[in-house]
Every structure is written in C-alpha cells, then in structure tokens.
C-alpha cells in the first residue's frame, strides 16, 4: 500500500522505468494501480537506436511484474518521509 500511495503522489512527474528485459522507457507518470502497473505518457525509449520497436508508441501501459527499477526525479523523493513510512509499515502500523 505504501508504494502504491507513493507512486500515486508521483503522478505527473517524469520517470524512467527500467524493465526486466533491460528496456528503459522514459515518460510522464500518468497512473499507477494496486499491482503497481504503470501508465506513461509521452514515452521515449532511452536507447532508441538500439530499441526502435516502440518508435510509434507515445503512451504505454507497463505491467508491474516486469518492472525492475523506477528512476525518480531527485526532488520527488522526500527521504525522511519515506524512511518514516517504511519503518511504520515494517512495524505493522
């Protein structure tokens, strides 16, 4: 629940999603759901010369199960807040 809420707060920000097949897609976070499936808008594949397969795709849905990393803008991360929230969740509160 914590990361679902966290990503919901990140909607509208520019993120880079790296998939488990090494494809990295950069775009504006449009929405996220309870499975952490991600919808991006204005997407660009990071290494488009190597991966031209999504050249005609500008909006996409990424299944949560294939996400390896989500790279966030540095100013989008409140480290103290995340620390507190993760510790609270780890304690079961």
């Amino acid at each position: 629940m914590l990361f679902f809420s966290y990503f919901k707060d990140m909607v509208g920000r520019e993120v880079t999603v790296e998939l488990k097949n090494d494809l990295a897609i950069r775009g504006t976070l449009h929405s996220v759901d309870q499975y952490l499936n991600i919808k991006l808008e204005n997407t660009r594949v990071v290494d488009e010369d190597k991966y031209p397969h999504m050249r005609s795709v500008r909006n996409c849905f990424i299944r949560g199960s294939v996400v390896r990393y989500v790279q966030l803008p540095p100013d989008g991360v409140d480290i103290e807040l995340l620390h507190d929230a993760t510790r609270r969740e780890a304690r079961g509160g």
Partner: protein
Amino acid sequence: MATGLGLESLVDQTISVITNDGRNIVVRHCFAYVANTGLETLYFADFLILFQGVLRGFDQATNLILDESHERVYSTKEGVQQLVLGLYIIRGDNISVVGELDEDLDSNLDMSKLRAHPLKPVVH
C-alpha cells in the same frame, strides 16, 4: 480499492504489445502475409517479434483479447517482416508492455529499412 487497470482507454485502439519472451504483436488491419517465414525462423535467436492489433478486451490479470493482430519480426540482417495472426488471446503473465500505437508515426516508419537487435526475454 478496485481501481481499473488503466487499459480501458486502449480498447478498440491499435496497440503494440511486447511479451515476456521479447515478442511484439501489433493489432490492426491485416498486412500481407510474408512468405518464406516458417515458424522455425521466428524463433531464431536474431529475431524479435512484436505483436500488434486492436484491443478487444482485457481483465484484471492483464489477459488481452487482440483482434486483427500481426507480429512484427525484427532482425539485424533484414527489414521487419509482418505475420498475420488474426484473433489472439494472450495470457496476462506473458505481457510486458502494452503501447498505444500512433498511426501517423507508425505510417512514417520504413519497416523494410528497420533493423534491430532482439529484445531480451524478461528475467524475473
């Protein structure tokens, strides 16, 4: 809590699907069948296949129903080949990315000149 998957807006649109084994299906009106592309070449290591078609339905597990679909077979040695598939159901756990296909951008691509290395399969 029961929020939608966010695929509603893609229903009846042309979409491009990348599957976990690195295939890509594009779902749209049919393209001419490319002869001399037997199944044995489809799974040759140097090929990447993209699925494309019209999304007719989906469910919570991202199972997809694709209509008028075809595969785009990428290779480093020759241009993209398109294989007509027709009506397909893809089980959700094989789905990586579902992209909305921009028809204008897509029609500007010269598929016969496009070369690409294969996408790696998803490793969990």
